[in-house]
C-alpha cells in the first residue's frame, strides 16, 4: 500500500501475533505498516472484535476488520469480515481514504 503512504496515512495493524513475526512479514512484503501486538486480545475484545473459539485449535481470534479514521480520530469507514477467508479490497480502503477531507 505504498499509495496509502503517499496519501499520508498511517496504517496501524493489530494482531495477537508476536511482534517479531509480524515485523518479519512487514519487511518481506515491503509494507509501511505499524504493527502492534495485542497479545491477550484485551484491546480487540474491548472493541467487540473477537471471534470466540474461532481459531484452528478453538482459541479466540480477532475478526478481520479495517477501520478508516479521519484526522480527528473519527471513524469514517468500517469493514468487518463475516467469513475469515474474505478481506477488504485494498481499492475500497484506498477509496475511503481518498474520500476523507483534505487537511
Amino acid at each position, binding site marked *: 500500500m505504498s499509495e496509502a503512504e503517499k496519501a499520508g*496515512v498511517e496504517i496501524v495493524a493489530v494482531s495477537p501475533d508476536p511482534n517479531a513475526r509480524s515485523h518479519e512479514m512487514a519487511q518481506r512484503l515491503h509494507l509501511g505498516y505499524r504493527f502492534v501486538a495485542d497479545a491477550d486480545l484485551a484491546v480487540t475484545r474491548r472493541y467487540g472484535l473477537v471471534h470466540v473459539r474461532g481459531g484452528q485449535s478453538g482459541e479466540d481470534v*480477532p475478526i478481520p476488520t479495517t477501520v478508516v479514521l479521519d484526522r480527528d*480520530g473519527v*471513524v469514517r469507514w468500517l469493514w468487518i469480515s463475516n467469513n475469515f477467508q474474505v478481506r477488504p479490497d485494498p481499492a475500497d480502503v484506498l477509496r475511503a481514504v481518498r474520500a476523507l477531507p483534505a487537511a
Partner: protein
Amino acid sequence: MRSGWLVVLSLLTAVGAIAGYSQLLRVPAVRNQPEGYVAALAIATTIAALAVALGRRWYAWATLVVSLVLLLGSATFNFVLARIPEPRTTLRVGERPLDLTLPDADGRLVSLADYRGQKPVVLVFYRGYW
C-alpha cells in the same frame, strides 16, 4: 460425448477450482468470492454424474465420489466453518472509538491519540500470520 472424456473434464474442473483459488489468493476479486470454488466443484460433480449416466464405469463412479466429497467439504468449509458470527462491535461510523495503546515491534507504545490532528489512520485487525 464419451464417459471417459467427461471424467477428464470433471477432474480438470475440480483441480482447476482448488488450484485457481489458492494461486490467486492475492487477487481480491478471487479471494473475496470463495463461493466461486464451491460453484466450480458443483459443476465438476454435475459433469461426473453425467459421466456415470453415459457409461457406468468404475472410474466414472470414482470421479463422482471424489468430486462429491470435495463439493461437500468445500461447502461446509465456506458456508459453516469459515463463517464469523455477527460481532457486537463498539465501533460506529461517525464516532470516535475508544483509544488503544499497544507496543510495536521495538517496544514503543502506539496510541490512536498520537495521530489525532496529524494524519488519518487505517486501523487493521488481523488474525495473525495471514
